[in-house]
């Protein structure tokens, strides 16, 4: 046994699989930590000492981390939560005597469609078009600042699209297919910087114990280079569908004037103070301005691609994980074909109408 590990965000997709792999691996004593008790439903398949602590509540986190040598920070949330859950977790880990905290950031810190040559040395921006990316950049920065003044070692992992059983990229796509709402931008020919969830959890275990990992960030991915269509075609096939039948979506319009004004911090109060009718008029006028000519015909409406997916599905750069390979000893433990076999097995388990 290599010590007790707290998994913060154990009720989420990655946290849950981390609980499962570590508990079944038998090398660690696993302590799931969740914000609400009901999120322990899956972890409670095991006889584990689950704890309830809000990710922003330092005192509760300290109690949850006490006795743990490591913390896996796999908490999801909106941008404010992503940033707000950094300092309490770090300080709680320090007060609890935790040696190392592994933080699950995201390859999205480099954007959804990173430029050729992007790697861990690339400069990060917190002024991207997608709030999630900015939050992860700021969370990483804050964590490294805390490391400068604190004792808890920190390793930052930047996985790409984490796929596998219970992944929203898989289950969500299956749901969209069944609802007739699925789409791929440019046929999904862009590179999917994916990582099978087991490979990510394997990397987490390496980051927990590697001497080189302290204060470092690592991009992580599968060994193979594959497209979004490669990832999702088997899902469609399992449900008796074909990617060839998916519509080419329209593109998401730019944000409306009011929400763009609200995005500018000093103007938020001004926007809030606008009379409601004026705000409505601004919104309506801007919609009209941006709408362009009406769509002809009365056929089915085309789906509209989100900005995030438009960028993802057009990605042309396979993010490297050479640094993780050389410093952590990371090598994927599940190849892409096996990852897909297991994922499709889960689709059937979860109750999707899988055709044999």
């Amino acid at each position: 046994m290599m010590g007790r590990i707290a998994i913060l965000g154990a009720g989420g997709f990655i946290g849950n699989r981390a609980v499962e792999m570590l508990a079944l691996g038998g090398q660690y004593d696993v302590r799931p930590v969740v914000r609400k008790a009901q999120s322990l439903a899956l972890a409670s398949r095991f006889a584990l000492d689950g704890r309830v602590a809000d990710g922003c509540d330092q005192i509760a986190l300290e109690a949850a981390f006490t006795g743990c040598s490591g913390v896996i920070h796999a908490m999801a949330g909106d941008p404010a939560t992503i940033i707000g859950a950094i300092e309490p977790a770090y300080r709680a880990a320090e007060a609890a005597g935790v040696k190392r905290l592994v933080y699950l950031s995201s390859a999205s810190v480099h954007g959804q469609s990173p430029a050729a040559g992007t790697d861990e040395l690339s400069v990060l921006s917190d002024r991207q078009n997608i709030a999630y990316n900015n939050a992860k950049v700021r969370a990483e920065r804050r964590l490294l600042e805390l490391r400068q003044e604190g004792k808890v070692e920190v390793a930052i992992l930047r996985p790409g699209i984490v796929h596998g059983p219970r992944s929203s990229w898989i289950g969500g796509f299956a749901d969209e297919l069944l609802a007739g709402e699925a789409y791929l931008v440019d046929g999904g020919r862009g590179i999917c910087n994916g990582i099978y969830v087991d490979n990510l959890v394997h990397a987490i275990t390496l980051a927990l114990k590697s001497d080189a990992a302290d204060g470092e960030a690592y991009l992580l991915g599968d060994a193979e280079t594959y497209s979004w269509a490669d990832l999702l075609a088997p899902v469609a096939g399992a449900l008796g569908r074909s990617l060839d039948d998916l519509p080419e979506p329209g593109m998401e319009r730019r944000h409306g004037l009011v929400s763009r004004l609200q995005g500018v911090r000093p103007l938020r109060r001004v926007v809030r103070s606008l009379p409601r009718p004026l705000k409505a008029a601004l919104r309506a006028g801007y919609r009209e301005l941006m709408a362009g000519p009406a769509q002809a015909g009365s056929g089915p409406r085309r789906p509209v691609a989100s900005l995030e997916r438009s960028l993802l599905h057009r990605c042309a750069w396979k993010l490297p994980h050479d640094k993780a390979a050389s410093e952590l000893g990371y090598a994927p433990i599940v190849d892409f074909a096996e990852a897909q076999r297991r994922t499709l097995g889960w689709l059937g388990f979860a109750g999707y109408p899988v055709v044999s």
Partner: protein
Amino acid sequence: MTANAANIAIAGCGAVSTLYYAPALALLQQQGRIGGVRAFDPDMDRARAFAGLLQEARISPSFADLLAAPADLMIVASPPMVHADQAIAALNAGRHVLCEKPLAVGSAQAQQMIDAAARSNRRLLAGHIRRQFPATNAIADIIQSGLLGDISAVSCFEGGPFAWPVSGPGYFTKAASGGGVLQDIGTHCLDLLTWWLGQPAGLSYEDDALGGVEANCLVRLDYPGFEARIRLSRDWAQPNVYRIAGAKGWLEWPVNDPVNFTLYLSGSGIAHVRTEAPAGDEFHLAFARQIEAALDGGANAVSASAVLPVIAMIDACYAARTPMHLPWLAPDEAARARTLAGTAS
């Protein structure tokens, strides 16, 4: 308030009490059907929060105090493991008892409760709320009338990511709850199926417990000529539909819909049926009907003895459990899972 307004005691002020019993009791207070409500919970904050939802409610500092206070009916809505003790104490004190599901953890406990009710000549009723729905009653009538012909297949898919606001991690233990998803929503499902279809000739059961309590399970009930397949989950959203197919048609009930279901009869096409029900929040009305039935011994009250076979089926499931195949596990994980599955109590 009318002169014959009943007094209610309630033990346990957790989610089911605050979300469902409190609105139902408030409704009955408005109607003058009940008078005072006295509540007890070991967590006084929860008891106070519950009492705050009602016009006239008092708090008991202990279960003994609750038991000593005058009441016509005690609602037991505590965690399942204390149902038997509290219900038997209330019956012995001369109260009628409406006990939330699961009535008891295991047939032995349930029988003790039934015996206590018989000895004290009090009513012991089970809180199987789905039996109060107009839709489930209509379905029972349709099946029992033979309208669907000989039943050929039954499937029940129910569940989703677990979101019930439980009070703490202890809920997810066999010691507190008697099991996982089977004990929780399986109790409802098996009760409805045995009400509609009668007792199965046999069953098989598998779940995903790995030393703890199950989040997923699959129950197969053997009936003459068909199988009822029940898939329950606290994990991933399920279709949440019960489908009963027969030689002459089929029906589908969206889980927990008090009034709606879909009926197809050969030659007649599909009918989306909305059963007649009083206006308002049908779910809260169903709880109110359940309380009234418990007070009056009404025909739609579900007696403890009526759910005894369901409790025995759950016992049989756990006794016969086999591990579910978890197809995403690596071979070494699967081997370890088989070992841990054998340790699930």
